[in-house]
């Protein structure tokens, strides 16, 4: 079987990412590495990659996730402290380019049997003691309901679409699911595949403001740098939405474009391509409507798309000299927000090109328009995941996931409070 193992070593290494703080851009860059295969589910992975700092309240979930990978498996840690049970043999690395080699070596050692996998961290027992009235632990009404072994069993409830008495399905998802923002965990109640209730159990990890935006709060910075960072950010978020709706190839090519982005680049080719393949009619495009007050709470591109004219760049005379006018007003659904990202990214590239050639710098340091929203010294955009409880009920699953991906929910961390 040695030849089979050696043939298997040449395949990309299946890795499942547990994304912590500030690691999302690097994870996206790693998607372009051909030596790695990013699995959609932890069951199909051999390597668990923990990237970025994991907040203490999510560490029990990380332990459970670690056990969800089928044994034998190995965990790699990047800019993160290893879990208590694994500290002695943890593989920690700092240089992002090394991941391909390290993962390849780890997988090879597993395949050839040189290395045992890591032990399970959680005890192999049900999450809660047996509870129920009946002989088999069932409770509730008759044979249904109750919580055998701590798992809530199905019990009929009125379906929210037409009042038919059907079974809701209740489960929790997150905080390490790459489809959701890193750190977001929710308890969902579904009727069929329509979401009936959402309860956020863990807010997304706060994101650190990029250095160039932080500096802009203190002193003038080149506008070109600001706008390039903004364009990159918007295109990264768009590529995630594209991946979610099934355009995997296009999403990877966008990520490749982001890496090589230069001022005066044009993304009209991307816009045209997306329009032609029907991306603006894909799952969730016309749904996920936010009300004006929710848009107000969100700020940033989502608010501008919904028609609120909130852009700190309008107060900066340097921007006005470059001919900046805020774009927006397309609508309050997902399609409008995707279009807003595209519009703002192409506007940012255009501005960056003109600013690079004229050497313009910002002159207004009271507030800065970061990609997430308006940032002022001491006032940073807060976490907005609470609006999901109002927004998601009634949406079908794929529409709900597209809606979550089209919103920028994570709060921005205050650098004064100390960062990871």
């Amino acid at each position, binding site marked *: 079987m040695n030849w089979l193992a050696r043939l298997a070593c040449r395949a990309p290494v299946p890795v499942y990412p547990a994304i912590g703080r500030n690691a999302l851009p690097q994870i996206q860059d790693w998607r372009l590495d051909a030596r790695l295969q990013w699995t959609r589910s932890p069951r199909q992975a051999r390597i668990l990659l923990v990237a970025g700092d994991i907040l203490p309240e999510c560490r029990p979930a990380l332990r459970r996730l670690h056990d969800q990978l089928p044994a034998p498996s190995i965990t790699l840690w990047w800019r993160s402290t290893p879990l208590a049970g694994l500290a002695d043999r943890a593989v920690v690395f700092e240089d992002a380019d090394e991941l391909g080699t390290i993962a390849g070596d780890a997988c090879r050692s597993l395949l050839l049997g040189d290395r045992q996998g890591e032990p399970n961290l959680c005890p192999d027992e049900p999450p809660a003691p047996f509870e129920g009235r009946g002989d088999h632990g069932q409770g509730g009404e*008759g*044979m249904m309901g109750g919580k055998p072994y701590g798992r809530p069993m199905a019990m009929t409830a009125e379906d929210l679409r037409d009042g038919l008495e059907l079974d809701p399905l209740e489960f929790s998802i997150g905080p390490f699911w790459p489809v959701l923002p890193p750190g977001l965990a929710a308890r969902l109640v579904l009727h069929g595949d329509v979401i009936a209730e959402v309860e956020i159990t863990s807010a997304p990890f706060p994101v650190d403001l990029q250095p160039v935006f932080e500096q802009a709060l203190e002193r003038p910075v080149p506008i070109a740098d600001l706008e390039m960072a903004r364009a990159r950010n918007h295109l990264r978020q768009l590529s995630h939405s594209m991946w979610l709706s099934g355009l995997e190839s296009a999403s990877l090519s966008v990520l490749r474009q982001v890496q090589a982005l230069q001022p005066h680049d044009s993304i009209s080719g991307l816009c045209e391509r997306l329009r032609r393949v029907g991306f603006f009619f894909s799952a969730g495009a016309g749904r996920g409507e936010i009300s004006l007050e929710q848009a107000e709470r969100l700020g940033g591109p989502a608010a501008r798309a919904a028609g609120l004219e909130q852009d700190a760049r309008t107060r900066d005379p340097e921007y006005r000299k470059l001919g900046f006018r805020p774009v927006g007003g397309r609508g309050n659904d997902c399609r409008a927000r995707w279009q807003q990202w595209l519009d703002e990214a192409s506007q940012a590239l255009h501005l960056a090109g003109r600013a690079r050639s004229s050497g313009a710098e910002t002159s207004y340091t009271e507030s800065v328009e970061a990609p997430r929203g308006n940032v002022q010294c001491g006032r940073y955009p807060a976490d907005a995941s609470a609006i999901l409880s109002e927004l998601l009920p009634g949406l079908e699953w794929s529409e709900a996931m597209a809606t979550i991906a089209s919103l920028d929910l994570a709060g921005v961390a205050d650098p004064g409070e100390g960062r990871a």
Partner: protein
Amino acid sequence: MTAVDLAFLLNAAIAVYSGWRVFRTDSMVRASFLLLISFLAVGAIMLLLGAVYLGVAIFFMMAVEMMIMALFMVMFMMNPAGLNPMNMVHQERISAAAGVLAFVALGAVAVFGEFPSRPKPEGLDVVARLGHELLGDSMLVFESAGVTLLATMIGVVVMSSRRGRYGDANEGSVPPGLEPGGEPAGQPPDDDDEEHGCH
């Protein structure tokens, strides 16, 4: 004992066994799919009997029907793989008696009946003959049955639709209240329907 005989015996055994398991399994989805297996075995027997179209049509129709039934099972009981054990049978004694009676009757017909021996003539194009029969001598029967089925389907969709002559079905089907905005008048007291311990 030719290959055809062996195939018949195998399919017959599968049909009977999976039919029995339908009533002994503890999950409704398993029950639907075991019933599907039973029907597929019967369809295979029809193929052996030379009824080429009918056999494949049975595969087709039974697959769709059992699939819809399984889906309804999941809708009414979101219980993947039957983790919650449940008793699937009602009124066992009457059903068992009826089943035994039906078996005895059909068995008597099968064993004591005089079936004609009419082997299919060589070179008979079964499908073409079936087609001529459906659209020739038996056209009235099949066309009226088809139209009746269509009317039934349309009727079901109309009846289960929420919109009625008096507005939304939930509101239009109850009498108005004695005061404006009050409870519907003349409704019998609501008694809890008792769960009899089954699904």
